């Protein structure tokens, strides 16, 4: 029987969807952070430490 194993397809698709969701979330984080502090450099966000 000639059929592609459906598992890798499902796996890759799901991973892409999740990856997109996380990227979108990070992007919206970046927008909000820029709004608050006016910088996109991660070195500027060190208020919390120790």
């Amino acid at each position, binding site marked *: 029987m000639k059929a592609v194993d*459906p598992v*890798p397809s499902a*796996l890759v698709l799901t991973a892409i969807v999740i990856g997109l969701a996380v990227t979108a*979330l990070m992007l919206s984080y970046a927008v*909000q*952070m820029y709004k*608050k502090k006016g910088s996109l450099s991660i070195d500027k*966000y060190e*208020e919390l*430490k120790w």
Partner: protein
Amino acid sequence: MVNPIYIFAIALGVGFLLSLFDKVSRYLSLLMFYGALGSFLFFSGGWFYEFINGAAVKQIFTAGFNPPYSINLQLGIHESFFILMINAVGFLGGIYLYDRFIKDSISSMILFLMAIMGFNGIVLTGDIFNLFVFIEVSSIAIYSLVVFDKNLKSLSAGFKYIIAGGIASAFFLIGTIFIYRYTGTLLISDIGNVMTVGKIGITAVFLLFISLIIELKPFPVNGWALDVYESVNPGIAAIISGAAMTASFFAMAKVLATIGQTWYDATMWIGIITFAGSNLLGIKQKNSNRLLGYSSLGQIGLLMIILGFSKELGDKRDFIAAGILFSHVFAKAGLFWIAGILKAENIKDWAVIRKKPVLLVLFATFIFTLIGLPPFPSFFAKWELVMTLMKGNFFLIVAAILLFSFFEGLYLFRWLGYALKLDNENTPDLNVNFTKVTSIILAGLFLYAGGYYAGTFIEAAKGINYIPIIFILFIGLIDILPSKLKNTISIAGVIAYSYYIYPMFQHDLLKMIFLFIFLGGAVITLFGGYYAEGRRAGFHAMALTMFAGLLMLIEAGTLLEFFYGWELMSIGSYFLLIRGKKSMPHGFSYMLFSLGGAYTIMFGFALAFAGSGDISLLALKDISIYPALAYSLMLIGFMTKTASIGLHVWLPGAHGEAVADIHFMASAILLKAGVFGIIIVLLAMGRDSSYAKVILYTLGWIGAISALVGNLTAVFQESAKKLLAWSSIGQIGYIIFALASMSYIGWVGALFYSIAHFLYKGILFSVIGGIALKLGTPYMYKMGGLIKKMPFSFLAVLIAILTLSGVPPLVGFSGKWLFYNIILFEKLLFQGAVVMVSGMVAFLYLYRLIDTIFLGQPKDELRETGEISIWLLIPVYFLIAVIMYISIFPKQLLQPLGNLVQNYFPENAITWQGSTAITKFGYFDASIIMYVVMAIFGAVFIWLVYNVRRAHKVKQFNIVYAGESPDLPETTHYAYNFLASYKKGVGFLAEPVVDRFWEWTSDAVHALADQIRRVYTGNGQTYALQIMIYTIIVYFFINGGF
């Protein structure tokens, strides 16, 4: 049994519909939301109930396919327990956030629901890719909830969180793909097979492993997690620390179960490093939420240790892990919830919590749970963990666990102390709404119930008597009633209970002696408590807790029961001692020494158990593994309570601040718990082995030096209460010295002295404490001339002092006589000389008490003062009556004591002829001495009375003033620096070298922690780099190279 798939169906269905129904009404969407969370809790509770009643593990495949094409779920007792906790925290956390959900955007509710569903999925799924999906679902929901409060801090913390989570999930995905590529399966239970295909398989497993480890936030690559805990809304932090951590931990356990022992070992070491690092660094933390973060990370570390020791812990593992996890989840969630109400960032601002006593009680409950004190489940779990590991010979690891538990105790107790004592006058009132408190109260109740339930699982805890604890709870509940009423109920309770347990110990004189000191002391001190007006909030519950603990020491038949009593007593006494005005630092150091002492005792007990496998107190006899270490550690632990030199630094301050009746409890009664412990250890150790000789010799010197330094430092105190406190250190030193002689006469002396010390110290504490209370100052140079104002007090103090100083005819003389005999019999000449010298030193401070308080010129402002409270005097005169009786008839006490001690040390006994006691070195007859002294005293007294009529009375101001008024009036007062001339000669012995040593140690540890915590730079990129480097190091560690 409900199919677990419904959890996902409900969550997703409600999640989609929420935004739709929200258009109709917010109350409708709230109803659906809480309905969903409630149904999860209801289902998981039902499942857990079925599984503990023996239901079989259930596998669920979806959509009629088999794995790997279907989603497969597994539900057994473990899964049901974990999701029960997750859903309980989820439900309570949802209720807690009600005031936010009712007004925020509907997306918060949806995200919250998705997070909880994700955690359920992580626990339930049996499929590795599914696990990945659920981890991602819950992570994305949590990433979004981190910015629940939209502020800069939570934004930057959330961003770092996503970076770390992103790395972890990339690893996980790659590992999953490799595993499927080489084995064709996604079943978690089969992934171990991939390791047979060679290095690529091991790498695949490693990637999964490290990803789960990163999710568990190991030290030192967990800076991002701390940032999240610090900045996120506490309601969400509770979910992250409680539910998310529970789920990740279960995922770890599930994967580890299939991949073999090497990985367990790695988990264990990672756990130890995390536990150690987090708790050490926590001691420098001032921000309450971040501190809770440190504590959370430490608890995860402990859980990883437990998981890593799965094989060694065997069938005990599940109980231990469940106990620790359950305690952590509800205590930590509760603490975060309280933090959310107080909105006090700095731990020093937590004093505001006193405005809501219910919250304060819950706060203390959670703190005790985290530290692992009774009656909470963590106590039993920690006990089983230590005992089982010890049985497997992991001595150093147990030592490390106890050491770093101590650090956790350090920062948590400092925090509790701040909350209990710091000033909160200028803080605004707390607005507490009903929904928030409900969640916290329920979390607290779960912990108490869990503690009771956990106790029923352990064989060694079967004998724990819960009657006193129920009584204490009752007293706690009626705390709003006036003090005098609670006092009456408490006394009635103690008497009734004494009557009930008396028959059990009737024939065991040793226990009867301490029962008399503890319970008799309870009645007497509580009676004195009638002097207090008002409510005296919390006093009775805490005093009874201490007495219940003391009682449990006597009742204990097993090591665990003894330890339970010991810890209970420490908790009660901590709250009593910290009641004084300036007691915060002293209560803190008292608790640290108690905790440290408890851990050394626990280690000693564990060694005893490891050698014999016996859970009863008989295990202390003939310890086979490191007996010298075990006995020494136990003795050190008990000596933290007797405040022997070196371990005494908490006592002067703590006792010096305590009010009259608490001072009595803490000194005359509490210190005897340590004596009782030492007696038990010494009886078990015996005196014949070579190590016993060394230990006893050292112990004798510790006793002698405690006696000398304690008495000498007492001489130089200005505060009458501190004077008595130091004197207690010296007096207990005598007892330890006598016990260390391990001889008939020594033990009779020690037991006799224990009773005598209880009697006369009880008098002194009550009276001096009563005077300090009346005058509002403990300083002797502010007193003076009180003999006419307080004649009854004067007489009582005089009698107590005559007794203490050991001059004939009172009981102190019998004690001294016994001591001379010990020295001569045992040829302890050097130690004996030190003890004798310190006995003479005692005269100095005793004389000072009489002279500077009662004699001399009365102060102007004290002209109107009167006698101290009658309620303090009644028990005092009762004690005087007992002293008089024993003074005339010491045989009544000495003979039974002799019969008792003869069982242990048959040689050199005292023989009796009528009322005359005879030893090899001489004899004494107390009754004759009493008559002789009375006759002489009577003669002198009559002569004085006869002569006094010829005396010329001088009025107080019939004197000539000269000179200027000094800047510091007290420095010119004769009672100030009273015995200065002695200071020149022997003052160096009273230098606080030991205090300096402990201060130095504390500073060094804090400085170390401050240096190490700089790894948390706060930079997201650095954190990413740290994770990568950590991954590589762990890889090398596990595989030993490429």
